[in-house]
């Protein structure tokens, strides 16, 4: 029995528990254990990815209950990829948070960080829709704590909006789950896939409502217009390392859309045909446009980076929306890229913010910042990655997307929006960069007695940023093996029979006949079969 699949969920929980239990007064120890734990997670994720790369679908039946009656975790190529991406990101961001002392500016940073990881990784691994809801809650509440970490009026306000909006999403998630369960009678994704394919015609209306509501929930998470309103201010106001980690959060939504729409409401399912992809493409393009327009229109670097996140979601969903293996490969490649690039951008923004005093990240002239050369170089790299310019992987990702949508009816529209919005991004990034790094005022003449405030340390933060750049360069150079893996991933996604067989076993699960009394409105909750007690 291999328990590795559940390790990415349990390890962060254990680490967080230990941090709270015995190290909550000792930041140094917290750092060691937190970083160490994140490092081990990367190793585990690599092992899992190696396991998934073979094409085998790993299933972990929690509590030993067979699917669909218990909860399962499922490891396939897609979930392994997302887990690996998350853990790599987590280490880099954690390095930054430690190096820039962000973790010392409020309580329980590391514990919340690991709980957040637990939520994200669980969401990627679970094969059960209600369990997905639970992990959404875990990551939501932990992320709320992280957003308001270190406090401040703006952060608090953004935090309230964030949590309220996402609680709306959670409520909707329950509606969606209730509806889907009410129709299909199951919560297991593989089981639901089989049942949806066999749903009688007279129940399609309810099913379709359930599907659309579920998609809306994921759209909230992925920040697709017009359900993205929680994102810009939250990301702009959150502590930068948190925003950097959140680069993966929108991808949780995108992942869920991809998973559910290929597995359950796949392109071949007649009952839900046509309601998802048609809607998705246009909202994705609008999201992309609004995100990139936001880059040009942002009045501060934080907001700029936040809108870049929105734009990147739009880009990858524009790829995803056509639901063909080719577009999925492109979208997944762009997912990896935009996660790394988005995080990098936030880290660089924070380096600037921390060194500009009162000017913060606002696009106004201020004295040149300390270590400006290196930070400017990092900004340049991050901007290139964000705009999808060569030679970094964003360009390859965009080429892949443009190439993959070729032949589609909407090809011209997609091409135009993707390319034109890139121009907006280039303009916005160039304006912002030249404002911050070039259009500086004279260094403030210190009156002599007041020693200039020492800039925050840059060693570890730089390591973090260069780690991300390294990852982006690696993604570019080794594009071919990555794409090969993604092609296999898409193959698995669009032929879910292996997945379903792995979860449900070779034979259809046998459901015992319903006890008498259902159908009469009688409750089922505690009507335990007492008579079996003596058996």
């Amino acid at each position: 029995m291999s328990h590795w699949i559940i390790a990415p969920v349990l390890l962060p929980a254990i680490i967080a528990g230990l941090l709270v239990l015995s190290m909550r007064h000792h930041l140094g120890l917290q750092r060691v254990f937190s970083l160490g734990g994140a490092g081990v997670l990367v190793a585990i994720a690599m092992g899992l990815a190696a396991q998934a790369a073979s094409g085998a679908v790993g299933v972990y039946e929690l509590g030993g209950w067979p699917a669909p009656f218990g909860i399962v975790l499922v490891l396939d190529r897609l979930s392994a990829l997302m887990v690996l991406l998350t853990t790599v990101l987590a280490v880099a961001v954690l390095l930054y948070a430690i190096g820039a002392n962000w973790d010392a500016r409020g309580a329980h940073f590391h514990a919340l960080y690991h709980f957040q990881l637990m939520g994200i990784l669980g969401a990627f691994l679970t094969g059960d829709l209600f369990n997905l809801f639970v992990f959404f809650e875990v990551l939501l509440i932990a992320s709320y704590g992280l957003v308001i970490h270190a406090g401040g009026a703006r952060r608090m306000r953004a935090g309230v909006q964030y949590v309220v909006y996402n609680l709306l999403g959670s409520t909707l998630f329950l509606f969606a789950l209730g509806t889907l369960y009410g129709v299909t009678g199951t919560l297991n994704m593989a089981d639901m896939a089989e049942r949806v394919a066999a749903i009688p015609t007279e129940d399609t209306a309810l099913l379709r409502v359930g599907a659309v509501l579920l998609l809306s929930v994921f759209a909230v998470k992925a920040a697709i217009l017009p359900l993205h309103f929680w994102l810009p201010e939250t990301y702009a106001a959150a502590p930068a390392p948190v925003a950097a980690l959140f680069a993966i959060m929108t991808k949780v939504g995108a992942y869920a859309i991809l998973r559910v729409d290929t597995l359950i409401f796949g392109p071949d399912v007649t009952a839900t045909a046509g309601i998802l992809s048609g809607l998705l493409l246009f909202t994705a393009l609008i999201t992309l446009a609004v995100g990139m327009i936001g880059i040009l229109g942002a009045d501060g670097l934080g907001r700029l980076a936040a809108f870049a996140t929105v734009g990147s979601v739009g880009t990858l969903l524009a790829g995803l929306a056509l639901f063909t293996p080719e577009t999925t490969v492109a979208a997944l490649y762009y997912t990896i890229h935009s996660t790394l690039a988005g995080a990098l951008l936030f880290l660089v923004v924070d380096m600037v913010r921390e060194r500009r005093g009162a000017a913060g990240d606002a696009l106004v002239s201020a004295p040149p910042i300390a270590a400006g050369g290196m930070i400017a170089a990092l900004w340049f790299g991050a901007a290139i990655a964000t705009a999808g310019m060569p030679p970094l992987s964003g360009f390859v990702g965009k080429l892949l997307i443009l190439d993959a949508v070729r032949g589609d009816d909407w090809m011209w529209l997609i091409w135009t929006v993707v390319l034109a919005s890139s121009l907006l991004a280039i303009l916005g990034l160039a304006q912002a960069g030249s404002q911050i790094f070039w259009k500086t005022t004279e260094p403030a003449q210190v009156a002599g007695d007041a020693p200039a405030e020492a800039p925050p340390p840059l060693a570890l933060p730089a390591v973090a940023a260069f780690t991300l750049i390294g990852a982006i360069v690696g993604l570019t150079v080794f594009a071919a093996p990555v794409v090969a893996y993604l092609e296999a991933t898409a193959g698995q996604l669009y032929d879910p029979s292996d997945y379903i067989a792995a979860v449900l076993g070779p034979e259809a699960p046998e459901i015992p006949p319903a006890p008498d009394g259902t159908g009469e409105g009688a409750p089922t909750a505690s009507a335990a079969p007492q008579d079996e007690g003596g058996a």
Partner: protein
Amino acid sequence: MEATSDMLPLIVALPFLGALLPGIVIRAGRDTCTWFTLFPTALALLMLLLHAPGVMAGEVYHWRLDWLPGLGLDANFFLDGLGLLFAGLILGIGLLIILYARFYLSKNDPMGQFFTYLLLFQGAMVGIVLSDNILLLLIFWELTSLSSFLLIGYWNHLPEGRQGARMALAVTGMGGLAMIGGMLILGEIAGSYDISVILQHKDAIQASDWYLPALLLILLGCFTKSAQFPFHFWLPHAMAAPTPVSAYLHSATMVKAGLFLMARLWPVLSGTPEWFYIVATTGLITMVIAAVIALFKDDLKGLLAFSTVSHLGLITMLLGFGTEAAALVAVFHIINHASFKAALFMTAGIVDHEAHTRDIKRLGGLRHLMPVTFVIATITALSMAGIPPLNGFISKEMMLKETTYAAWAGNPWLVPALATFGALFSVAYSFRYIWHVFMGPVRDDYPARPHDPGFGMWAGPALLAAIVVGIGVAPFVVEPFVNVVAGAVTGAPQDTHLKLWHGVNAALFMSIAAILGGALLLASHRALEAGWLRAGPPAAKAIFDAIVGAATRAARGLTDGLHDGSLTRFSAIFVVTVTLAGAIAWSTGEIGAPSRATLPIAIVPLIATVLLVGATLCLVAFHRNRLLALVLIGVVGLTVAVGFAYFSAPDLAMTQLSVEVVTIILLLLALNFLPRETPRESSGARRLRDGVLAVAGGGAVAALAYAMMTRDFALPSISSYHLANSYKGGGGTNVVNVILVDFRGFDTYGEIIVLGIAALVIFALTQTVLRGAGGRFLESQGRPGGEAGDRHPLMMVVATRVMMPMALMVGVYIFLRGHNEPGGGFIAGLIVAIALLMQYMASGFAWAEARQRVPYHSTIALGVLIATATGIGAWFNGVPFLTSAHDYFTVPGIAELHLSTAVAFDVGVFLTVLGAVMLALWSLSRMARRTGEPVNVEPMDVNPAADAASSREG
């Protein structure tokens, strides 16, 4: 003839690798830095020249490496005549520029940075001209845009530098993006992205429906890069860069990238009417307009910039003609233009460097002061004007001759006439460069006393001037090379004889007309200039700035307008979107008749419904009174609990009840710190809107619920399995509890963690708030008024003390019976929490806290860890996480006890719930203490026992 050469990628890579060095080596001094920049360039040039004999013999060198074959993006390079010409120009002129820049840059300029950027650019440029893959070419193409952005903005303290850099990036970036589209289409038609393959598919490409879009997109890239009308305006503004950059990028190399690409793809794209009319016309217009503007530029570099644009237009026009002869002239003129224009820029830089001004109006008479510069400038400017026996003359003659063959829309006169007109202005501005700068009397008001610079600075331009003369006098020297390059462009071997004297023909007369007219123009320059200024030609920069400014403002307006931070608006959009999406989904599906009969309306549900609806309506009406709102929420919660009980779900009812109690108490405590009334902030219209939305959203949910409840599962539900297996597999008869801790124990595991996180967040939040402005606010507020006089009444204290052990007993009981009867760790945790809460309410938090030892943080963490450990314990049985094991134990004297490992898990649940509630309570009490609430010493305000004791002592 094909051959493989492993040196090709190295030629491209060397500048990039070399770019790493100058930035570091600058610490060793400027000379060392220069040497380290020269070295990779020279080495790359050497490697290139090693291939020259082979190329001259007709060899084409290849090198390929698969990068992303699935997409067609591969690192393929090839070198033929065209590549050799351009790579030679880039590296050769690069050497001269580096040398020149060493002396041009002042001590205050960061030279290491400059050379790093320059080498990056050089590498990108070499990459463009050696790429055998158009996607790879695109990468290098955009890299030149990026590196030139850095170079133009090198003097970033100057606004012109910053603006020029952004403008260049915007225009060339736009072209680059368009070209991405064009290249993808081109590759699709040809079936490959390799240039050497694409060049084989002329017929397929030109016959394709996609030919025109591809052509337009690619040309957009070429025209923006090569500053063709109407995209020409960025180039003059790019002149804000240091002169070595202008000379290198904006005359010799980068702006020729567009020409290069047109030449590279000439065999497959040219020869169609579309090509002729787009390319030749654009080139012609650019050539004429830019030549006219150049004459009226007072800035030396501005003049040269527009003259460059004009010459680029000339070459574009020649390529546009689509004939092999014209293509050959284009190639020849590229060589000539690179030689004289780079030298001219360097002389302009020398003048600027020495006289500290580039304004022609402030110059004149320099021939006496700077004789060497004067000679170089004169030779090269005359070449630009097309005066024999210089190289510019030969190619200009050939150009004029080609124009006589070009009929524009059937009109044979139009092109030659306009070309002559352009040439006339070309002569005029060239003469002006000599006449107004070097001729005339020596002035005494130069900003600095000009003199010739050191050898290092004029060596480069002098060498180029020598080449200008050399090619002019002995064109046969370069003839084979030009033929090879033209052969590479056209794809057919060329054998044209280059000579200075072409005999008396139309071109000669056109030339003479141009020279005479040009001289006349210069003579009447003052009058013309006055007219030019009066006409006030449109300033491209103003237009560009207006567009970008408007775009930025529009973007900001849209962004800020859309994301105005109003949560109510965001929520409204959410409700509308989701309701609409659901309605559409519903209307596109089918729904059968209800399959379940509705129940008769009984009295209890009716009362409960009335209560629920009534409480909700009251809540809407009275929500501004927060205390009342809380009470009404309590009513709703309790009614729901009753509902659970009525529908035989005692577990849920108990949970709901205890949750209700805990949350109401915590909310009451929190209300302490808030205003009693919610202020009225929305207008009537806003409330009407929100009301409509709320009713619509709520109605939709109700309708959905109704539709669902009146229908059976479409397929058999999994719940019957849970009923059947609860005891057999889960070891409990209470299915709800078994589901919670066993079937779906993992969900519970997640949810207790949510609860624990929430408590940690509340703690962290409180701490941050108290540390900051919030804490100061609370201090200034003081304790809220209107408290009871007896904060900790005797009766309550005594009663809670008595209740405590009983409540704990109930908690333990509930906990233990959980697996078979309603109960469990979650409810038990809440009950114990309530028991403790009562103590805290009775005697004050601090008093009670001092009497218990376990920190709440630890309780939460222990709970999570125990739950985890219980789950992991299953591993030792070789079964998955959270698999329960259960057995029967006999506790002597009491009863047979049925214990399941799920109980240990439930302990974790219990602890987490307890700790979370208490930590939240503690956080609230910390806020209360900040307002100045005193810490009790005694358990109650009036303590008879203590009074008695003190009176005894007294």
